[in-house]
């Protein structure tokens, strides 16, 4: 018999097969993990370089002329020639899936109050915040994206939009807030904590216990201009600024100035805000961010 002639070879091939199988297993497992990893939807694509460019560009005359021309072509319809948000298109009505009718009022650019910022509440938005809004548009509100425009043109629009409000010349820009998502966001534990905070911070008053935007106060909310507005319905949709964890976090931190949504930067700790993010992601059923 030649049974024990080459024991080592036999042994090696045996181990090799085992290793190969384990490898397949681990690849398989890794692949699954990769698929579930959060995907950036490009909402935060504006880099720091851009910020610098925007600031450097200054208020030179040519840029403002270009901005004015583009504004006249693309923005006047809704925001009006004087930027007061009373363009000829008027109020846009949207019937949500639940049957609720939202009235969308174009932003009054003369007030200098903007919802989507990366700075504390009350601060002016940074140029890059405005640029991002112009570039990507606002989901659900029919503010279209302006990706057809060149970067220079979009920057010119930013510069021109800033001329509507005197605040941009009078006030200093605030410090930018960065969203650094901890790893545990979306975990079960974090969701439970977030749910407690959701109740504690009286969110259900407006957004309702189940997050469907039908809380007891939901019918009495008006924005800074006196227009009736409705709280967000977590059940049916996406946030206007995008529903990534970072964007939800920024909404809690910076508040939505001009609307009824306050900033929780001072009233909640950073960690608590992230817990709240976990819970709202659960409400929105964003399975890809939940663990």
């Amino acid at each position, binding site marked *: 018999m030649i049974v024990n002639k080459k024991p080592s070879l036999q042994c090696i091939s045996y181990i090799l097969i085992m290793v190969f199988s384990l490898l397949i*297993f681990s*690849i398989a497992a890794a692949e*699954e993990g990769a698929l579930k990893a959060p995907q950036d939807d490009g909402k935060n694509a504006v880099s720091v370089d851009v910020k610098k460019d925007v600031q450097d560009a200054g208020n030179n005359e040519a840029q403002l002329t270009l901005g004015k021309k583009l504004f006249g072509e693309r923005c006047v319809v809704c925001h009006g020639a004087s930027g007061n948000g009373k363009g000829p298109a008027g109020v846009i009505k949207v019937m949500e899936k639940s049957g609720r009718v939202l009235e969308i009022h174009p932003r009054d650019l003369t007030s200098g109050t903007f919802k989507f910022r990366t700075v504390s509440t009350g601060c002016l938005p940074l140029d890059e915040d405005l640029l991002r809004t112009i570039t990507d548009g606002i989901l659900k509100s029919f503010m279209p994206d302006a990706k057809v425009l060149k970067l220079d043109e979009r920057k010119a629009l930013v510069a021109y939009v800033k001329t509507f409000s005197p605040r941009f010349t009078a006030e200093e820009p605030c410090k930018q807030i960065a969203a650094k998502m901890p790893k545990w966001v979306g975990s079960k534990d974090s969701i439970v904590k977030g749910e407690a905070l959701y109740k504690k911070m009286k969110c259900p008053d407006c957004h309702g216990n189940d997050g469907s935007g039908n809380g007891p106060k939901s019918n009495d909310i008006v924005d800074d201009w006196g227009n009736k507005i409705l709280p967000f319905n977590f059940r049916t949709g996406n946030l206007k600024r995008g529903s990534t964890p970072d964007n939800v976090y920024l909404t809690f931190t910076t508040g939505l100035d001009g609307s009824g949504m306050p900033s929780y930067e001072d009233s909640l700790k950073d960690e608590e805000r992230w817990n709240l993010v976990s819970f709202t992601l659960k409400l929105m059923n964003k399975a890809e961010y939940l663990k």
Partner: protein
Amino acid sequence: MSESLKSGIEQFKDNIFGLKDSLTKSYLRAGKPTSDMSRAALMVNNFFLHIQGAKTHINTLRPAYTLGMGLIAFYLFIITCVSGALVMIFYNPSIEHAYSTVKDINYVVFAGRLMRNVHKWSGEGMIVFVLLHMARVLYTNSYKRGREFNWLIGIVLLVLTFVLNLTGYMLPWDQLSYWALVIVSNIIQSPKELTDILGLTKFVDIGGIQKEFFLAGTVPGAATLNRVYFLHIMLLPIIITTFIGVHFWRIRKDGGLTVPDNFNSSCNVDCGNLVVLPKKTGGIFTTNKTYGLMTMSKGVTPAVDRDVENTVLSWPNLAIAEAAVFVLCLAAVIVYSIFVDAPLKEAANALIPENPAKAPWYFLGLQEMVSYSAFMGSIVIPMLSVLGLALIPYLDRDQSDVGIWFSGSAGKKVAIKTLIVGSVCLIGMLAFVVNFGWFRNWWPSIAQIWIILINPANLWLLFVCAWSIWIIKSTGSTRMGAIALFTMFLVSYLILTYVGTELRGPNWEFFWSKAQWPIH
């Protein structure tokens, strides 16, 4: 002379009073089994018992040796036949009435539900025990020394068991039956996949012809039910009974069950209170005379040489063992049937496909492979598997170690090693396919021929062959190769069947459990 003195009436009276004895005598021929002679005669003179020897080797009676697998499979067949006949009385094989008569069996026939359950579970139990019996025969190296042909008959019986079960599955004409019928007919049609590629379909559509033959039409309907019913209650039972007869007859002809060459247990230790032959030291025969029919048979018989020392009389030793197994079997089936109902879904509805439409569980390993390539999974690989299994006794002609479990510790090692390597590699391969898909997912427009040629099922088959050959090479023994091949077959059947049954959901997609299935 004294008889004639009695009157006719007296004779008649005596006959009446002696009825009990004369009936017994005519039934048993040699009188009550009180002596060794009459015990032996009882076995030999009875039609059903004579297929067994008058004497049985002790090894055959060891529960740990045979595990009673073949016997259980046979008893399950008997139970299936009897309960099947009872169910058949109330069943009406027409598509209008089949379903409602099955419902009636469940609801209003006395013990009808129990009988149907017994029929169903003993039938499916046959599959399990036929496979286990086959495993026992293989692992104890019992397919040798003249038994090669009987192994082939065993393979035929295995296939018949599958087909009998399948045809029975169709009869209730519920959603399960109907969609299994559709699936099976598609499987039967699968040679079309190859003929399509070769452009032969328009000349000779083998798959189509097969399908039409099976369905008696192009879609399942009244004629299909008749055909399946005929197969199930008539043709297949006749065939399988014949083959079972041949299978048993060959056991005798081949010299009974296998016994290790060096079997040497002394009756003082092992025999307990078996009824043994008296020790003879003198006389014409130095060994005991035997009453079996082995004189005509070839091979080694228990009646000559030293083997005779380890034999005991079949009556009552073998008889009681067989009776015990039968009653155990019956009890187990009835207990299971009391608590678990045979499935019966909604009435067949051609407009509402079951999703996933699954074949019966014992074919789900095949269906898993069909999901890679219909032609390979349903025709080529099953055929090759059956062929491979059938050829085992002819490719492994190593005549040593017969009758020893795993042929000793080396075989046990090979079996365990194969079990581990087989499970790990197969699960690994399935995990790969589930996660990454196959050619069709990577290159959607790839020609089907490539998938037929290279798909996970084929690769697995190649791996199994390579592994067995490698075992033969590394151990230098064809017997080890046989163990490796068969273990691989068992592992593949088990794992693929499990995956097909439990882990595949709608559209044959992977799910960890049924709870995760989407809508429905």
